[in-house]
């Protein structure tokens, strides 16, 4: 009896090995997705997942890549660096994916970047915009890319927009001291604004656990006149600050980075009437007249049941960029795909035309969106 059981078990083991073989032989192209599905940054990861699902479905319906169907394997970073790192390890060593998409924010991407390099699997973050995601400042990470523009570029764009379009000469800066994203943006904005001939009258920082900003807002109001307020943070706190600033009687224009883009911004601010004269830089605007963008919006709205955000647009572009790299390489070998990805030329996505610079950062345009009563009212394209 025991022997039979052992035999059966052995047979099962062999069979399971066989099925694994057949699935790869059948020829799906496996793409790993490692984004924030829960945790604080889930608002960014969720739309990216929906966009990736849409793009994969479109590609498969049109015959796949190199005649093979695409299979996306999803992991959740839980907005946690350690989790993100272990997910990428699993994707590279167990799932043996061709490439990895993720993560949605800089912190979790930076945590996992060394692993992608170690296992030589190309990893593209759709939206990790910190300067040091794709390089350590002196050398580029050969296997890490991004689809979005970087924070220094955003900081410069917002500062230029404040000086020229808004005609501001005195700025107040308020930002989180807990994230690299916020700290870098605040510094770069301040530098560029002063380069443009303006003065920064006050800079205030807080930690990510804060929800009450009245003390620093009162302090800003008494620090001197300013005609623009720059908030360097994600929507979770930026929304609260916008609401509390407007309640405290700060009426000047408020500018911020792409982290402002969230369906919760208005609710966090405490009502649409609080979100006026607010501008943020972003990667994509639904107000675009481009036919490809219009098609994407229609398809995404139909499949996801909500309007796309910049995050969904970037993730969508990332999948197609990967498709082009695999086709250019004419191979599913991660190293060959990586070489093709690095050499990609004028990739036409819905968030703009992408070429990579030597730091694996895309050279592309930014968009400044104005919010009127919490709704996107106008979009201005700012070229690099």
């Amino acid at each position: 009896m025991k022997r039979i059981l052992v035999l059966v078990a052995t047979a099962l083991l062999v069979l399971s090995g066989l099925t694994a073989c057949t699935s790869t032989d059948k020829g799906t192209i496996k793409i790993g997705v490692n984004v924030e599905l829960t945790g604080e940054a889930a608002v960014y990861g969720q739309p990216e997942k929906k966009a990736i699902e849409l793009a994969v479905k479109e590609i498969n319906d049109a015959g796949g890549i190199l005649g093979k169907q695409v299979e996306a394997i999803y992991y959740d970073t839980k907005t946690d660096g350690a989790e993100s790192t272990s997910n990428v390890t699993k994707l590279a060593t167990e799932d043996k994916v061709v490439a990895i998409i993720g993560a949605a924010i800089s912190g979790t991407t930076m945590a996992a970047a060394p692993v992608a390099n170690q296992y030589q699997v190309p990893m593209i973050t759709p939206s990790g915009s910190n300067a040091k995601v794709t390089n350590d400042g002196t050398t580029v990470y050969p296997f890490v890319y991004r689809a979005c523009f970087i924070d220094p570029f955003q900081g410069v764009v917002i500062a230029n927009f404040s000086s020229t379009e808004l005609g501001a000469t005195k700025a107040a800066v308020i930002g989180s001291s807990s994230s690299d994203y916020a700290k870098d943006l605040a510094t770069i904005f301040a530098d560029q604004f002063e380069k443009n001939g303006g003065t920064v009258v006050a800079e205030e920082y807080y930690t990510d656990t804060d929800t009450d900003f009245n003390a620093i807002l009162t302090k800003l109001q008494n620090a001197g006149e300013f005609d623009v307020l720059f908030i360097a943070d994600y929507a979770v706190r930026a929304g609260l600050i916008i609401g509390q600033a407007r309640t405290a009687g700060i009426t000047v224009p408020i500018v911020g980075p792409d982290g402002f883009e969230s369906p919760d911004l208005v609710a966090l601010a405490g009502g649409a009437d609080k979100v006026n004269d607010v501008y943020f830089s972003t990667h994509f605007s639904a107000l675009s007249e481009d036919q490809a963008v219009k098609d994407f919006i229609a398809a995404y709205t139909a499949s996801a049941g909500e309007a796309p955000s910049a995050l969904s647009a970037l993730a969508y572009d990332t999948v197609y960029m990967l498709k082009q790299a695999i086709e250019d390489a004419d191979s599913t070998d991660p190293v060959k795909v990586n070489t093709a990805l690095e050499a990609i030329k004028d990739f036409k996505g819905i968030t703009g035309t992408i070429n990579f610079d030597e730091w694996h950062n895309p050279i592309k345009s930014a968009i400044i969106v104005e919010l009127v009563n919490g709704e996107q009212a106008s979009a201005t394209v700012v070229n690099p």
Partner: protein
Amino acid sequence: MLEFLQQMINGLSIGSIYALIALGYTMVYGIIKLINFAHGDMYMIGAYVGMISVTTFKLPFVLALPATMIVTGVLGVVIERIAYRPLRKSTRVAALITAIGVSFFLQNAVSRIMGAKIYTFPPVLDNRTFMFYGLRFNTQQIAIFVTAILLMILLQVIVKKTKVGRAMRSVAVDQDAAKLMGVNVDRTISLTFAIGSSLAAAAGILVGIYYNTINPLMGFAPGLKAFVAAVFGGIGIIPGAMIGGFAIGLIETMVSGYGSTLYKDAVVYVILILVLIIKPSGLLGKNRKEKV
């Protein structure tokens, strides 16, 4: 001067929240000498229950507040039954560790059920701003302040003037003696947890409305601050918790307003250490017989 007064207003509105949470802390400690670390999470539960009662059940604020307090109060009793009562005769460290366990359990249970994402409150309370001699007041700030004061008075009346309150005070002095005198100790302790939890819930719903953002981990930091507030005022003493709460709120705001926000937590904990060194029984901690 105007800036200073405005910062006072900012500080008092945060302080009233700490005070409300600290009241529950101090009550539970006063009766069974348990530092209930899960108390901050009862505040979080209160915010969620409040959010559900105004969004799903569409209750107006005046009904949502008592409804939330009752639901969370009942939960507080259940937690006491399951987690703390079996440990009443064991060491205080065992009870303390259990409280930390309950705290993690509540945080993760809410994450599991409601998701780890952030919820926002619909605008249920009037949010108008008006100026008074150059100072800016907000109707919600006033609502929080007034609610905190009213609940403190109510609590003081319950503890000092009612039969239940007398039972609580007697249990605080000596559980065995109270039992011999015919006080139902179990029921009295349950009631203490019910009242303490419902006060935390009141703070939770008010904070949810005022800051407009709630998440499963929101209870941790304010819970610690409220604990500091309770110790500062003299743990176990109701007016002490109130004074401690306002003091911590004001100190935090002044540090943010005239120094940097980044130091405010450090300053609060330095104060806790100083209080523990200089006056371990807290500001009002003289008359030990009055403890409740």
